[in-house]
């Protein structure tokens, strides 16, 4: 955090100064570790075992926050008797289909809901395999997964062998400190310190928070890493409370916003799933499949969100008769995510590609595959501040040097359009805590520099002009599209007008034309419009709330009048949980929101994330769904049963509980069970994307070391915004690898000398930084060396102050099945002293490694690990 979010880290330092204990768990000793009270090095890719060990410590040691767990989580809920756990099936949950490599999740359901699966909606019961259902689970960024209804059987004594709590206990019983040491390389005494600190610092009086970044997401089981932390936090009562939670530190100014208002294939704004071919023929099919009216919470109003979105997009053309234009939405029927698209590009299926402030030639895994794919495009549009490597790969990319590509042979037509900087346009960024902040335009962009707002508005205008007279059905959605925005200086669309459209307004009735103040005002009858329901309220009272800048010094520590957080300016989600079931703060120290009996409403430091006047004692009539179905002690109002999910009966494709799997490229056998890696992982077996073997397969010894990548404070992602800046470039001028003195001795690496790092994909060279900040770990009786690589450098590019080989060229592409994120935080490699071969010698050098390891396209693609061999 000190490394990549230094300014956010000021709050950690302040907490530390007040007595907080800071623990840093990371394969390498970073600037964060230097400030931590306890630094725990572990093997990259072993975190679930570590988290599972903590869960086991909590459960077996009775360290959980019982009252919180019983009232606010699904610990007491009874699960279907058909459910079989990974410890029973040696690494699989019940329902695995070896043919499709996917799970039928019916048996994971809450007791009494299995039948609902028959309804055939995978979102409800998770039945349909991704192949048909749209390449993965729904992204659940704004809510929990749907349930057919919320009538669950609970045993609040937590004794029932089929209640979540007992299942959890059994599931994690094998995650002992010894197992943690065997998998993570963390000695038991050190591990015990973490467990003691985390549990001792949780409860009524104290809270613990967990912070993660892509070190947790970029794995073939990334989602389950976060789930592991969620289970810990729910067991310890750290959710919905100040100083608690699980904080995702995101790496880009508006990466949160680009998920909320998604430039993502499987989402519509506000985490509404993209409609799926066959499954979502009509609006009605869609709505019944993404939610049930009998489930609890605000998600039951999804119909109002969808219809308002369609009205925002197609205005008067969206009518009840035509399903509000729902039929115009394109359908997905497979994984159309980034890496699948790149593979399709390689096969010549993709003609045109827009790159908008992104540099995949350096920033995406398997850079060579990215560049090869782009060389097979017909046209490429790159919009960026600088001439990034992705814009110049055809000219000076590494493959030009090796002769694997020839400029003269590349048909790709490339348009580079200079972009406007943040000071040259108005708009909002959504930062890592869901806070929208408006940035004002300071100056006009120079030359041909333009904002994306300008580019896409005018591109849309041109396309509409060209199709004005078209009679084709396919062109109707564009011709009917609401595409009128007031133009300001330089024909720049008014960003505030766009934000107002996102916020939404009343279309008819006496409030016609007025902006919506809250998403609860949205209607499913077409009388309201709103481009992103979770952002409704950003323009409440007709004021751009995101532009509020009341100085922090002039308001409470929650600072509710600075910017605007979705939903409804709530700064901590599910904050009802900061009070006990009776509505009293768990403790004075940790008071946040509470029930004011006299006033008959919830109040506190933040906007209560709960129906304002619903008493803690309220109990709904059985069978009532929606917001009114929420009891006064159901804090998790976006969850279909109002509870925090220790166990996920639906919504996930690779299991209801996190289980340890080895990374696809691992030096070790899975110590937990026969199954080596996540059987549901998404793979792209092809020559451009080879994997190296892992045990029990032979040849793993050719790539004996673990390699992981990360950022440095001095640079930004793929370097497009830092390597062109002399002041930043001079602070970290060269690409380097960090190795321990022990590894340096083993391989004869010299400090400040050169090293060549090789994986199944390619070989790159880096200056060597030999440092004690990397420690060899003893894992499963073996010494494991880890190599650290910052991934900011790239080869080529126009005008970069510094350049160098790209760490991401080493990484392979295998994906987490739920969110299609690649495993690039743990891979197998070899390292040798000296510079890498150049020209045609480089591919030959890599090929020799592949042959020694006996690599083929099938290497590492076995879904079901055969039994036997020494684990």
């Amino acid at each position: 955090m000190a490394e990549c979010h230094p300014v956010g880290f000021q709050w950690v330092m302040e907490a530390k100064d007040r007595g907080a204990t800071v623990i840093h768990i990371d394969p390498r000793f970073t600037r964060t570790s230097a400030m931590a009270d306890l630094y725990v090095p572990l093997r990259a890719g072993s975190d679930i075992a570590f988290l599972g060990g903590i869960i086991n410590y909590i459960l077996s040691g009775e360290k959980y926050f019982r009252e919180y767990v019983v009232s606010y989580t699904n610990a007491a809920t009874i699960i279907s008797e058909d459910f079989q756990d990974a410890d029973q099936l040696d690494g699989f949950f019940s329902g695995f289909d070896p043919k499709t490599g996917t799970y039928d999740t019916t048996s994971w359901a809450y007791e009494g809901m299995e039948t609902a699966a028959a309804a055939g909606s995978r979102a409800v019961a998770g039945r349909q395999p991704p192949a048909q259902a749209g390449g993965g689970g729904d992204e659940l960024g704004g809510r929990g997964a749907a349930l057919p209804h919320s009538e669950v059987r609970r045993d609040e004594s937590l004794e029932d062998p089929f209640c979540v709590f007992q299942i959890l206990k059994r599931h994690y019983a094998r995650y002992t400190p010894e197992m943690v040491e065997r998998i993570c390389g963390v000695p038991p005494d050190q591990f015990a310190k973490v467990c003691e600190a985390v549990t001792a610092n949780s409860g009524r009086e104290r809270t613990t928070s967990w912070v993660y970044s892509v070190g947790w997401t970029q794995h073939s089981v990334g989602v389950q890493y976060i789930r592991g932390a969620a289970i810990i936090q729910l067991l310890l009562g750290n959710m919905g409370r100040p100083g608690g939670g699980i904080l995702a530190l995101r790496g880009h100014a508006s990466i949160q916003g680009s998920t909320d208002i998604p430039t993502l294939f499987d989402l519509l704004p506000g985490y509404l799933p993209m409609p799926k071919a066959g499954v979502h023929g009509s609006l009605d099919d869609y709505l019944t499949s993404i939610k049930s009216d009998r489930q609890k919470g605000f998600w039951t109003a999804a119909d109002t969100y969808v219809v308002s979105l369609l009205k925002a997009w197609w205005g008067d053309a969206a009518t009840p008769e035509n399903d509000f234009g729902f039929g115009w939405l394109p359908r997905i029927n497979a994984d159309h995510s980034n890496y699948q698209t790149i593979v399709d590009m390689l096969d010549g299926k993709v003609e045109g590609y827009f790159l908008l402030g992104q540099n995949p030639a350096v920033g995406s895994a398997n850079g060579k595959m990215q560049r090869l794919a782009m060389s097979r495009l017909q046209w490429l549009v790159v919009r960026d501040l600088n001439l990034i490597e992705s814009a110049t790969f055809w000219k000076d990319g590494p493959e030009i040097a090796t002769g694997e590509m020839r400029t003269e042979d590349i048909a790709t037509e490339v348009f580079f359009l200079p972009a406007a900087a943040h000071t040259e346009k108005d708009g909002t960024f959504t930062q890592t805590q869901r806070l929208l902040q408006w940035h004002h335009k300071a100056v006009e962009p120079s030359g041909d520099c333009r904002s994306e707002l300008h580019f896409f508005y005018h591109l849309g205008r041109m396309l509409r002009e060209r199709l004005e007279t078209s009679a084709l059905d396919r062109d109707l959605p564009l011709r009917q599209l609401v595409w009128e925005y007031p133009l300001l200086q330089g024909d720049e669309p008014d960003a505030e007008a766009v934000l107002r459209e996102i916020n939404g307004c009343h279309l008819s009735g006496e409030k016609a034309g007025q902006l919506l103040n809250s998403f609860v005002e949205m209607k499913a009858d077409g009388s309201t419009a709103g481009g992103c329901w979770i952002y409704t309220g950003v323009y409440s009272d007709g004021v751009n709330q995101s532009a509020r800048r009341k100085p922090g010094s002039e308001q409470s520590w929650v600072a509710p009048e600075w910017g605007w957080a979705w939903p409804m300016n709530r700064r901590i989600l599910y904050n009802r949980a900061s009070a006990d079931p009776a509505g009293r703060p768990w403790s004075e120290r940790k008071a946040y929101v509470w029930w004011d009996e006299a006033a008959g409403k919830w109040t506190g430091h933040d906007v209560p994330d709960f129906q304002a006047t619903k008493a803690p004692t309220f109990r709904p009539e059985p069978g009532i769904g929606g917001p009114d179905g929420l009891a006064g002690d159901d804090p998790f109002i976006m969850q279909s049963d109002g509870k925090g999910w220790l166990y996920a009966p639906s919504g996930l494709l690779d299991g209801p509980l996190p289980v340890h799997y080895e990374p696809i490229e691992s030096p070790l056998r899975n110590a937990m069970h026969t199954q080596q890696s996540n059987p549901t992982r998404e793979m792209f077996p092809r020559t451009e994307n080879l994997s190296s073997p892992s045990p029990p397969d032979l040849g793993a010894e050719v790539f004996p070391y673990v390699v992981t990548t990360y950022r440095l404070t001095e640079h930004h992602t793929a370097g497009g915004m830092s390597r062109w800046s002399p002041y930043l470039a001079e602070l970290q001028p060269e690409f380097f690898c960090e190795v321990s003195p022990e590894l340096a001795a083993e391989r004869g690496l010299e400090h400040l000398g050169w090293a060549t790092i090789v994986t199944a994909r390619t070989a790159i060279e880096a200056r060597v930084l030999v440092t004690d900040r990397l420690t060899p770990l003893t894992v499963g009786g073996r010494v494991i060396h880890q190599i650290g690589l910052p991934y900011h450098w790239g080869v080529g590019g126009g005008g970069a102050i510094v350049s160098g080989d790209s760490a991401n060229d080493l990484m392979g592409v295998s994906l987490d099945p739920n969110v299609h994120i690649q495993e690039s935080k743990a891979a197998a490699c070899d390292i040798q002293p000296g510079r890498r071969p150049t020209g045609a010698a480089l591919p030959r050098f890599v090929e020799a490694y592949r042959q020694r390891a006996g690599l083929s396209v099938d290497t590492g693609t076995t879904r079901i690990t055969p039994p036997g061999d020494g684990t």
Partner: protein
Amino acid sequence: MVPPATFASYYGRPIVKTAPWERDIPAYLFLGGMAAGSSLLAAGADLRNLPELRRVARIGAFVGGAAGTAALIHDLGRPMRFLNMLRTAKPTSPMSVGTWVLAAYGPLASAAATAEIAAMMPRRLPIAGRVLALSARPAGVLAAALAPALAAYTGVLLSDTATPAWHAARRELPFVFAGSAAASAGGLAMVGTCLEQAAPARRMAVGGAVVALVMEARMERSMGLSAETLHAGTAKRLMNASRALTAGGAIGAAVFGVRNRRAAQVSGVALLAGSVCARFAIFEAGQQSARDPRYTVVPQRDRLQRAANA
């Protein structure tokens, strides 16, 4: 690997910075000193009526002063701004003091020298020549009055820095430079003057050489650790050469230089060379002492230790 930080230093990097000065400065140290010594000889010769010695010394003083000033200006980062030196008069700045001394000395020495040159002209200038002739003696005497300051301040110029070797030499350096100035001036005069008139120059040269050699030896003792820098590399070679040339030149001057013109001239050149070497040796030693953090840290640690013990 990242070298483990030792108690002594930050990756062996220097703590103080070396002076950004090139050859100009040691050259100036020599030229200024030679000029100062020459002015003294010139004034003496003038009062004692030794015209040939006077002529050689006055011209030597002028050339030394002028060349030295040129070297100073050339060494500036912004030579065009050399006049800014006269913006202030700062007693805390040896360079400021030196500048004013040089500013006063220069015109006087020039005036005296110009008279000599005018006198050598085949055609005599009627009035100007008279004025020059009349002003020559007062100018020369005044220049001589400033000469000791000019010769000695350069010792303070170097000592008044954080450069370990120079600062450690502060008690002797002015004497070494003054002696060296006398030796070089005497040497120059011996080269250019007939034996009959060169006696004062010989005595001054020998005396200066003795002072320079004795004080230099004392200096090395009081320099402590940083004296090492005089015993290694370029500085060592230069200092050895300087000792040999100065001693040899002095003996030559005293023993053979009295009767043999050629010997006197050789001795004079040796003394001049000895003075040059001495200045460059001390300059180089200082720079070396700044490059190695040892010379900064160790003496300071000892000082703290002594203070702690006391």
